[in-house]
């Protein structure tokens, strides 16, 4: 696989040209934060950023997605028949996402893309995506990717990894898809040994800058019942307001809710992101609710990410270490603290 070096201007021009073959998504500054948007004529990509406030999960798994459409008009010959809504599965390139968020896609993939049932829409959109990651030269204080099997320059789940070398990018192709994308870019030159060793230095320096570490290796051996019955859940949940911000921002939260909506005689079946933090999430039609208490829902979220998932897949925790939930929780609940509580119980 090739390593190419582009000047930053060259790179930006290059990805603009990709628009003829891909839907291109880039981070832009919006108010105080960054977010991914579709690259268009007026878009000013900003790759000089920490991370987007919302993870890029919506680019593969929209926050609200029409699954089916139907007519409730009795005069329509196809009345009441649910037909799949038209969707665009054209190739898309996500430029500049962080390695933790690529790791997030791999975690979610275990749920949506298993041999038993492949989620038709998630899988096709994921397969149509080329992920061009940007290594983190300056990880933040809430980043703990290296504690959950990742790292600021982790390559797993990416098709291309970019190294920011001050005035240029070194682009390392990691997959066929990545090579294909790079081959479509004008300019650039084969990376020299000097540039390669500079990239290694940047990577090493970044890894050393990760100050936040928590041990997730003990969770697999913990007893599930003992963790479930641990006394700390009620204390932990006390401050929680069940707002669901953590699940909304999380690149690895995948739950959704299915609803039918009818306007006049046109109906849609829609799926929307949902959150285990909400009491309605588990409410039965009968009124019974298996998780009616707040602490049960808080416990469920952490037990799912840090124990049930661990036991079920035997491949790490359901967390990419991006730190969004730590940064944006309005009552400062910190998943790293929860891991420590679970470790020491």
């Amino acid at each position: 696989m090739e390593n190419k070096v582009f000047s930053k201007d060259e790179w930006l021009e290059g990805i603009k040209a990709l628009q003829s073959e891909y839907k291109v998504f880039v981070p832009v500054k919006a108010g105080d934060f960054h977010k991914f948007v579709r690259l268009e004529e007026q878009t000013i990509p900003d790759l000089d950023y920490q991370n987007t406030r919302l993870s890029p999960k919506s680019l593969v798994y929209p926050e609200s997605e029409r699954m089916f459409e139907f007519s409730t008009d009795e005069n329509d010959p196809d009345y009441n028949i649910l037909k799949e809504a038209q969707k665009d599965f054209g190739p898309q390139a996500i430029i500049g996402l962080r390695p933790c968020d690529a790791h997030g896609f791999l975690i979610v993939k275990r749920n949506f893309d298993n041999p038993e049932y492949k989620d038709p829409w998630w899988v096709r959109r994921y397969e149509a995506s080329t992920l061009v990651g940007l290594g983190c030269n300056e990880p933040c204080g809430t980043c703990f990717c290296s504690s959950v099997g990742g790292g600021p320059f982790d390559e797993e789940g990416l098709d291309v990894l970019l190294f920011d070398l001050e005035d240029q990018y070194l682009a390392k192709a990691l997959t066929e898809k990545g090579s294909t994308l790079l081959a479509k870019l004008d300019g650039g030159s084969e990376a020299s040994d000097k540039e390669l060793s500079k990239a290694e230095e940047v990577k090493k320096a970044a890894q050393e800058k990760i100050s936040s570490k928590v041990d997730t290796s003990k969770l697999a051996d913990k007893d599930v019942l003992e963790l479930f019955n641990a006394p700390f859940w009620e204390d932990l949940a006390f401050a929680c307001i069940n707002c669901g911000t953590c699940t909304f921002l999380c690149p690895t939260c995948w739950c959704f809710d299915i609803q039918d909506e009818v306007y006049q005689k046109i109906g849609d079946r829609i799926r929307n992101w949902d959150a285990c933090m909400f009491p309605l999430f588990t409410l039965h039609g009968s009124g019974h609710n298996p998780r009616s208490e707040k602490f049960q829902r808080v416990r469920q979220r952490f037990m799912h990410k840090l124990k049930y998932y661990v036991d079920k897949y035997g491949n790490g925790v359901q967390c990419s270490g991006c730190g969004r939930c730590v940064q944006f929780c309005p009552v400062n609940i910190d998943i790293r603290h929860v891991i420590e509580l679970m470790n020491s119980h």
Partner: protein
Amino acid sequence: MKSKIGVTPEVELFFRPHLARIERIFPQVADHRLFQLRFADGAVSEAFQHTPGQFIELTVPGVGEAPISVSSPPTRPGVIEICVRKAGRVTSALFELQRGDQIAIRGPLGRGFPLETFRGHDLLLVAGGLGMAPLRSLLQTVLDERRAFGDLILMYGARNPDDILFKYELLGLMNRTDMKYLLSVDADEEGIWKQYVGVVTGLFKDVSLNPETTYCAMCGPPVMYRFVVQELLNRSVMPERIFLSLERMMQCGVGKCGHCAIGPYYCCTDGPVFSYSEIRDIKEAI
């Protein structure tokens, strides 16, 4: 711009419901009805082969979907029967529909009772309230292939004498010599009940079980599970031989949406029928 816009063939497999009609409606006790459904497409109907304990996602057009267990046995194909309590949005809308009206069905979904494992063994079925709905599918399957199974006992606990589902159908079992049917009611305010009054576990005093040869299948409210499981364990029935059907808000039915998560399991794909050995360490399960 080159882009592939289209539909995905996989959707046919499990997300898209198929049209069906309500063929007949039988009123049961208050707020409960038995609906007979038939697919519009004969090929879809033929492909629908379920195991007792499996469920469907029922669409009431324009309203939404709800998970409902199948009450009819696979031995009587063609018509799908569901016994529904009017409770939430979708079931309330279902109760507004008439014979001949359209609904749509996805399924069968989930893991039902292990019928193959049960064959050749004694069976104890324990139902509480609306739990009789999925167990009726198992009961009728066993009765239709009666010689393939050993001793058969059905215990059914209802709230009061007016709340017994499939009342007359089940009354016919009283005279059968090839099975035992025990009925209890929690309360009998009018004093008309001639059989056992009390919780369903009270019925155990009249039966002897061979723990070596008996499998138990049950469906009912969580509180019933706690007591019945304890009763069975006291009688040396192994947890691996006890099967329970759990109820959760199963939405997608194919292990994606997360609503029915129980510990490491999804109720919709790993269940809704679990052996007690699978869930005894998951406190939230029952």
